[in-house]
């Protein structure tokens, strides 16, 4: 993975000093609340319902064992011994103290981590496919380009006060595991007919209260133009994006208002001024970035027979099927650790688990860990021959729930229990659903289903792109839940359709059960929930849910 040189270390170190000074001036009354707001947000610090919430950046979801141990230490020393993996692959602390945040940042710097631009109206942490570099269906590793974008966007002087937040995602595989169509900018790495690398550039996707799928504005962008083209997009947005209404300030609104073609023409005009300028990427720089992501020292191993492995035990077989993925190197497998224990908020992880996962990543890999936007962790390089031994350890650690990609792999924001923006709680809804569908064979029979819960229309739980989406709404001071069906991420992304009037909290598990029964009754052999929904439409579900 990327390692800092003296430039990176100095820049992040000066950031820590800058924020320490800003915090002191704020506590001294020299900075107003209003002025301090963007300063603290751009250092990941929210003031929340119960305490500040701090969001630590995990650039494109890549972590190492040393960093996990540091996170464990931080949660113990400054928090309550646990943290939360967010839907943007970041790590959140729920209970830090404002005056201790500069110390936390200083500790993070020791392991080359930071909280830069994890919130605020700026370019946020760039996200990527959690299987980058190891996925069997990979065209090209997204991480070197993510790192190039990370450096360009870090403290970009022109784009620190945008109309609204700005999120970039990069996908280098055939199947999109980074939800690139739902980002302000989505980049898909492709190889052209001659085998040259290029980017498809999508712009103006997003969730929130106006969900939109991104528009393709460049079919085949050469890597050397990556930063100048991004800079042109941002410059158009910074000048023309709406600032009069925060709900209409995202780039998706601008692109829709102008039309994607007109927006593209404006970008091309700006681009003409800077294309081929100093910001053009050099081959040396691309190679430098790639040098940090060369494949580790894989052993030459034969491919194991997965069906034979599965004979070890029925529980292991289930886990093998659902929680592991094909690796691009023979004899290896990608393992997903499910942070979805019933009764624990989805994505929550304790200090002890952090440390145990750090140890496992060294014993069963090269000391690398990934965080996923489904709020799980990944060990990317596990020898197939070690899978059974690893599984037994994961069971002990309670991160082996064999439900990745199923109904019970719920994606969920912190919701009204923690977040001051939320209209409704989301964690108890997740738990109620997990408890209702505790029959694992039924869950497997349902097959691949994404269920996403957001506690408000800011959509941190990405409910619009859940096959089943649940959104908390406020009705005259009461918490209600709106259900939508048919959303999906990926390159054939779609936005969910609203089932109908919202439901009380206690009704939600019943409604989900009715929706699933409808699916089971109507599905054709091998048909996924999403496919059935696309074939039959929302009406049969609506009839059953409101019968």
């Amino acid at each position, binding site marked *: 993975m990327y390692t800092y040189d003296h430039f990176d270390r100095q*820049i992040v170190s000066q950031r820590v000093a800058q924020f320490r000074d800003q915090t002191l001036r704020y506590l001294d009354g*020299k900075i107003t609340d209003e002025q301090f707001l963007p300063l603290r947000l751009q250092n990941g610090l929210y003031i929340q319902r119960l305490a500040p919430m701090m969001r630590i950046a995990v650039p494109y979801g890549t972590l190492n064992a040393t960093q996990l141990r540091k996170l464990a230490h931080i949660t113990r020393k400054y928090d309550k011994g646990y943290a939360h993996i967010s839907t943007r692959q970041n790590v959140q602390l729920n209970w830090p103290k404002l005056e201790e945040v500069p110390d936390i940042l200083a500790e993070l710097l020791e392991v080359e981590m930071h909280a830069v631009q994890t919130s605020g109206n700026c370019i946020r942490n760039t996200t990527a496919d959690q299987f980058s570099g190891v996925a069997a269906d990979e065209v090209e590793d997204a991480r070197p380009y993510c790192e190039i974008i990370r450096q*360009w966007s870090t403290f970009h*002087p022109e784009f620190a006060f945008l109309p609204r937040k700005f999120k970039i995602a990069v996908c280098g595989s055939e199947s999109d595991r980074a939800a690139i169509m739902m980002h302000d900018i989505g980049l898909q790495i492709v190889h052209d007919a001659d085998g040259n690398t290029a980017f498809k550039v999508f712009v103006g996707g997003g969730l929130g209260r106006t969900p939109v799928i991104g528009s393709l504005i460049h079919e085949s962008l050469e890597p050397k133009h990556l930063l100048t083209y991004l800079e042109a997009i941002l410059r158009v947005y910074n000048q023309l994006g709406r*600032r009069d209404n925060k709900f209409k300030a995202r780039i998706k609104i601008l692109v829709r208002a102008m039309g994607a073609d007109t927006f593209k023409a404006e970008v091309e005009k700006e681009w003409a001024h800077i294309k081929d*300028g*100093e910001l053009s990427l050099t081959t040396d720089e691309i190679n430098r970035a790639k040098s940090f992501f060369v494949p580790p020292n894989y052993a030459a191993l034969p491919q194991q027979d997965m069906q034979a492995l599965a004979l070890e035990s029925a529980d292991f077989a289930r886990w093998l099927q659902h929680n592991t993925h094909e690796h691009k190197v023979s004899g290896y497998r990608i393992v997903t650790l499910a942070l979805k224990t019933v009764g624990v908020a989805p994505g929550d992880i304790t200090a002890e688990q952090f440390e145990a996962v750090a140890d496992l990543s060294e014993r069963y890999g090269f000391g690398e860990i990934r965080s996923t936007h489904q709020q799980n962790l990944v060990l990317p390089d596990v020898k197939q021959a070690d899978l059974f031994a690893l599984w037994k350890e994961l069971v002990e650690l309670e991160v082996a729930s064999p439900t990745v990609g199923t109904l019970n792999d719920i994606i969920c924001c912190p919701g009204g229990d923690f977040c001051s923006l939320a209209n409704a709680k989301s964690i108890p809804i997740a738990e109620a659903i997990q408890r209702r569908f505790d029959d694992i064979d039924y869950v497997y029979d349902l097959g691949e289903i994404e269920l996403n819960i957001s506690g408000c229309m800011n959509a941190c739980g990405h409910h619009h792109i859940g096959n089943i989406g649940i959104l908390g709404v406020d009705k005259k001071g009461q918490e209600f839940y709106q259900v939508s069906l048919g959303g999906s991420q990926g390159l054939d992304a779609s936005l969910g359709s609203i089932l109908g009037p919202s439901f009380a909290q206690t009704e939600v598990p019943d409604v989900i059960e009715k929706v699933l029964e409808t699916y089971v009754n109507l599905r054709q052999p091998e048909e996924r929930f999403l496919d059935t929904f696309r074939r039959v439409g929302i009406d049969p579900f609506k009839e059953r849910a409101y019968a």
Partner: protein
Amino acid sequence: MPNIIKDQQICDDNWQVWRDAETLPETGGYIVPLALWQSNKDALKALGDVAVFLASDESPKALGADIAEFELIAVDFPKFADGRGFSYGRELREQFAYKGELRAIGDFMRDQLYFLSRCGFNSFALENSDIEESLASFKDFSESYQPSIDQRLPLFRRR
């Protein structure tokens, strides 16, 4: 006489901001709105020294060839969170090759000085922070990843 920061030094300054877009001032020495300039160029020039400011929704493109006429152009920040002016600064310097004084006026804050100066601003009529203490903020960082007015090469071409 109010102090401003110019080229990272505190200095006296005679310019005053004239915000009335309808009426002409009686003397020179004012930084006037773009609209007032556009409709009264000769009258304003006859008064003596004149400068212009861009509101946050006025791109430098609107000034066009007039840019060369000014020794001072200002950009107004109605709220510090309104970051359009950062792009205007770079545009003036990089696309219009403006070489004169570029001043930030309005509600910007001390903690934006570093970024503003990297976007081409070299003078600052800072209203809401202690001006002496604020000088420290120009040194928030000693190195940056991106190219800027004072460092034409991005870090990746120098490391």
